[in-house]
């Protein structure tokens, strides 16, 4: 006897939807929405959550933020889900450190009538009502390759400097990058290595050094993480590779301003995290108001941001990322 993987295969699958949506229901006021980022004190999440706060204030609801001080403290995040449940918030917006670990706690929360939106980083689909995605993973992955390719004239060895090996979103994007590279127009470009800097400045630094030493012919690096691209840029700008090895990826304009100006980096991209947070807030309120339930095809209006449609598995896409370069970077401040 015994229980093995095959015995439990059939469970899970789609997102947790219940009841029926009433698109015309009134937007409730006076709700409390708890934001639970992967890590408090992280500039990216702070910007995102600030966006959420602003949106909630406009909607006449209350905002609160809780969260662990370390991005790898999964158990800490779980207990914050529990805390929010205890505090009987109306909805929570969670950026999950781990797709599975939060599930039990989130389901517990939904059982208590709390609406759960994930943003930035998703859980398994049945553990939340909807997921607000920063941009479609596909768009992100493909555009980064395109950005780099243009800078390299579609020639040369390239590498990827990612965050943690376990980072779900990073891995999805990398898959799409690899897929994009299969296109014949990239036949002279070769992905030689994926390195992991664990979102730690020093490790990302050394990984960049290692990439350059191991692959002397390396021409370009994609770093789809804000910490990674920053560390790589700082290393490149202080080394002989400055300007010779191209770097692109996901970064914030404030982080990257210096490197764009001193010629280390030509262009990179990112969505606006404040918009991401705002959309998560709108989604949470819409769920609580009963305007949506998280089913594919439902639509709702998110203030000035326009109308959004829920996609497969309850995923809502924020839209296309913005590309930053010398010309436009000074228009942004986040």
């Amino acid at each position: 006897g015994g229980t093995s993987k095959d015995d439990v295969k059939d469970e899970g699958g789609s997102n947790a939807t219940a009841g029926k949506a009433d698109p015309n229901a009134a937007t409730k006021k006076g709700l409390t929405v708890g934001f639970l980022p992967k890590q408090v004190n992280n500039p990216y999440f702070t910007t995102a959550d600030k966006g959420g706060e602003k949106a909630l204030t406009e909607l006449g609801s209350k905002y609160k933020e809780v969260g662990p001080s370390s991005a790898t403290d999964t158990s800490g995040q779980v207990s914050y889900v529990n805390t929010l449940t205890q505090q009987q918030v109306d909805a929570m917006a969670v950026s999950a450190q781990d797709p599975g670990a939060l599930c039990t706690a989130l389901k517990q929360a939904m059982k208590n009538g709390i609406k759960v939106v994930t943003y930035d980083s998703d859980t398994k689909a049945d553990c939340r009502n909807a997921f607000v995605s920063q941009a479609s993973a596909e768009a992100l992955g493909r555009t980064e390759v395109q950005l780099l390719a243009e800078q390299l004239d579609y020639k040369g060895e390239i590498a990827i400097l990612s965050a943690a090996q376990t980072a779900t979103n990073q891995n999805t994007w990398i898959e799409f990058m690899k897929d994009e590279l299969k296109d014949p127009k990239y036949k002279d470009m070769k992905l030689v290595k994926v390195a992991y800097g664990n979102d730690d400045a020093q490790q990302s630094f050394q990984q960049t050094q290692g990439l350059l030493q191991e692959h002397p012919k390396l021409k370009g690096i994609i770093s789809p993480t804000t910490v990674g691209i920053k560390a790589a840029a700082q290393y490149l700008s202080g080394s002989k590779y400055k300007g010779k090895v191209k770097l692109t990826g996901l970064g914030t304009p404030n982080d990257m301003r210096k490197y764009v100006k001193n010629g280390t980096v030509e262009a990179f991209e990112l969505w606006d995290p404040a918009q991401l947070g705002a959309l998560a807030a709108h989604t949470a309120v819409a769920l609580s108001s009963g305007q949506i339930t998280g089913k594919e095809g439902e639509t709702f209006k998110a203030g000035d941001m326009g109308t959004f449609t829920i996609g497969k598995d309850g995923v809502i896409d924020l839209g296309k990322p913005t590309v930053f370069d010398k010309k436009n970077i000074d228009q942004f401040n986040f």
Partner: protein
Amino acid sequence: MADSALTRAVRRSALVRWDGAVGALLIVVLLLSFTTVDGFGNALNLSFLIGNTLPIALIALPMTLLVVSGEIDLSVASTAGLSGAVMGALWNQGMTIETIIPICLLLGVVCGLVNGLLVTRLGLPSLAVTIGTLAAYRGIAQIVLGSDAVTDFPTQYLDFASGRIGDTFVPYALLPFLVLLAIAVVALHATPFGRSLFAVGASEEAARFAGIRVKRQKLVLFTVTGLMASLTGIFWALHYASARFDNATGLELSVVAAVLLGGIDFDGGKGTLGGAIAGVFLLGALQNVMSLQDVSAQSQIVVTGVLLVLSVLAPRVARQISVARAGRRAASAPTSAPTSP
């Protein structure tokens, strides 16, 4: 030296008071929270509290014994992570959970044995060895499971690890823990084995000359610690329904902090399990309460730190007061006791 012997004696009685004090503090915190903190007293929250504290408590049991005997194991969290990772990997292979769990426990035994052998056979300092294995075991976990996160363990196991008995505040997992706690308390405080651990911790050489098999005892302790760490790893993976290579990262510092708070002296030879467990749950309860009160994670860190510093300063102050009181006549120079880590 004479004076320090005196202060040592006083410190000893202060220490006895200290683990009592931690226990008392725990009770005070619980009572206050019951009456004043919204959402604290209900059964669900209490079960959350206990469930989230259990991993630390589980490891604190063998860690207390180890520290009493003058050693330390910093690799426990990595061992837990490794057994979780192996559990996930084997589960992905399609093995049954009933075979996987014993394999993982065995793995924990091996991890502990490696630590123990390095410490006892080569005579290496356990702090250094286990910092090494801390990295090594975590690294192996990463090799084994890579970036996977395994979440689809059978529901009856998940329910056991995260569920509670009916609507009470008692998580299922608390019951086996209480049994383990009882075993550990008896082993440390009521058996010849435990008695000799105190001797080993206070003076290894004297213990050896008294015919105590110091090395074998330490080996046993490291092995048991490995076993308990892997048990914790399994519990962790099931409790959070997620097996990843980085499960329980940093747990060792929480355990060490809690055990220290409970008055266990890292020089060895002193401490009680009651104090250690009180320390564990005191930290757990405080964190729970502070979160409910919307105290930010940053401030919680400060509180933990202040508590730790107080945990050693308070007995010291109490000691000085009692010395001062005891000794208008016996006012021995208070410059005496040597400082040691």
